[in-house]
């Protein structure tokens, strides 16, 4: 039965990872931009959770504020910088967004400092759900999984079933045609980027109570997101979900079964996928 706890942990980690990685893979799939600073948004979200919770008193009020701030940040960034990268080669995108990471890290250091912080779980979600006689599972972790699932479903519905989603998909496959049909591609791109930033930041915010808030968290999550995108295939949300869950399991069970090599488990998984599918499990060739 202890496995049930590890399974729940795997799912929670995987779903959280999906939230962050989905932004990364969408931004690349739709705008063709590889954004190294994506992990920084996760870090910014976590630090926002910390600061705003201190300011407003609880996480519930901090969340919507944080999302709005993150979305605005995303919009501003896209208009000022990211837009100029759409037709540049990947090397320049990598370099510019690497510069962004440095800027974000130092700004955070200046504004909030380099300390590790914790964020208090809201009271309603503070308890544990009993699973068996002896085992119980934290309600908050279930909450994280539930929220991520809901957002994943919302993403799917938006992209597949709404007009907005249709415009996004059109813009992704043929921007010029979409533009000449009257779709405002520039705003679609700004929207997608802002949404990606907000998703990553939101993930950081809800993860903060369980993973604590520390300076290296952005870089850490970025690398794993890259592995998610490589395994899942660029631009594929389905691939990102499958890959995130796979990694969630590999990482969690890796830590339990072989602690010394836990960090390596994820990369071994990536190596195996690469041997057979260099474009990822669901990648478009």
């Amino acid at each position, binding site marked *: 039965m202890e496995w049930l706890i590890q399974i729940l942990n795997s799912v929670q980690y995987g779903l959280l990872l999906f939230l962050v990685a989905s932004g990364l893979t969408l931004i*690349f799939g739709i705008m063709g931009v*590889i954004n*190294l600073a994506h992990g920084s948004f996760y870090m910014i979200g976590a630090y926002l959770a910390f600061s705003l919770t201190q300011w407003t008193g609880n996480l519930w009020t901090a969340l919507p504020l944080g999302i709005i701030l993150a979305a605005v940040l995303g919009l501003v960034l896209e208009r000022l*910088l990211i837009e*100029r990268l759409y037709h*540049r080669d*990947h*090397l*320049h995108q*990598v*370099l*510019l967004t*690497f*510069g*962004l*990471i*440095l*800027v974000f*890290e*130092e*700004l955070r*250091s*200046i504004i909030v400092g380099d300390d590790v912080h914790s964020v208090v779980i809201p009271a309603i979600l503070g308890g544990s759900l009993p699973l068996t006689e002896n085992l119980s599972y934290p309600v908050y972790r279930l909450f994280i999984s539930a929220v991520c699932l809901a957002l994943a479903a919302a993403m799917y519905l938006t992209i597949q079933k709404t007009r907005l989603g249709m415009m996004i998909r059109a813009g992704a496959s043929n921007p010029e045609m979409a533009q000449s049909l009257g779709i405002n591609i520039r705003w679609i791109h700004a929207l997608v980027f802002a949404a990606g930033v907000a998703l990553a930041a939101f993930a950081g915010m809800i993860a903060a109570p369980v993973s604590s808030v520390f300076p290296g968290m952005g*870089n850490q999550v970025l*690398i794993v997101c*890259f*592995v998610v*995108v*490589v395994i899942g295939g*660029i631009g594929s949300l389905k691939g990102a979900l499958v890959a995130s869950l796979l990694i969630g399991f590999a990482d969690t069970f890796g830590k339990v079964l072989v602690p*010394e090599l*836990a*960090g*390596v488990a994820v*990369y071994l998984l*990536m*190596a195996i996928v*690469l*041997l057979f599918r*260099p*474009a*990822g499990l669901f990648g478009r060739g």
Partner: protein
Amino acid sequence: MRTRTLVLSLLAGVAVLAFFPALAEKFYVQLVTKIMILSIFALSLDLLVGYSGLVSLGHAAYFGVAAYTLALAAPASDPANFWLTLPLSLAASAFTALVIGALVVRTSGVYFIMVTLAFAQMVYYFFHDTRVAGGSDGMYIDTRPSIGIAAVDLADDLHFYYMVLALLAGVFVLLALILRSPFGRALQGIKVNEQRMRALGFATRRYKLAAFVLAGTLAGLAGYLAAAKEGYVNPELMAWHQSGVVLMMLILGGMGTLLGAVIGTFSYVLLQEWFSTLTKHWLLLMGGFIIVTVLLFPQGLAGLPRTLAARSRSGLREKNGDA
């Protein structure tokens, strides 16, 4: 770049660097030694990125593996044997590059960038999380390697400086020769149009792997020298921040030119020194500087004449009312 210009700039550079210690104090000799070592690192990456079009974001892994090999192979208190430990370290880097390379050359474009980064992280975590080589604390190397010639003592910073200078010049010449050879031309063809190269009959994957291993080995040379110089290694040597930094050096100096790699390294380190005097948050300034460079001067310093010429041409056209 024309051969004559290349040879002249090489000779001029070597001459300047050779006379430098006579005019400078010890601190600056050590600084320039560090810059020369990093130049070797940058040159090795230029082969991959600038000439073959392979944007590797995990190049620091091979730098670090060689450094660690020296640390692990060096005896507890005696100086290590240069002629044994250097080939050993180069072999370790080459082997790591071969294993990782065999997997990553199956990918291209963004995937390649991401997997090179991910595998380098794996190497980083291996050294960071295990106690194989001191974990996050790193390891010390008590004395510099010994070259076995009585007159040369690498523990003397001046001797070490000239050895590094000789190696830098050697790497520069080696790369210049390779790049104009059939192999080098094929790599450049792969960068411009890999599909066409395959359609012509080149087994491009093998060429890319060869370039990857060669670049990794040269990065290992730089790593060995860095470890020998500092007498200390830790996992941060192969953190991906390092890989990002060496890319920044390349774009600062100008990618796809050998001279640019060296100029970029000098520029970056000197900029870093200057920014550090301004604020402890100098990375903020560096980050901003890189962003501006990418947006406005992507050809780097070596390409500055071209960038300015193109700007003034388009400026003139605008003035004259052309579209």
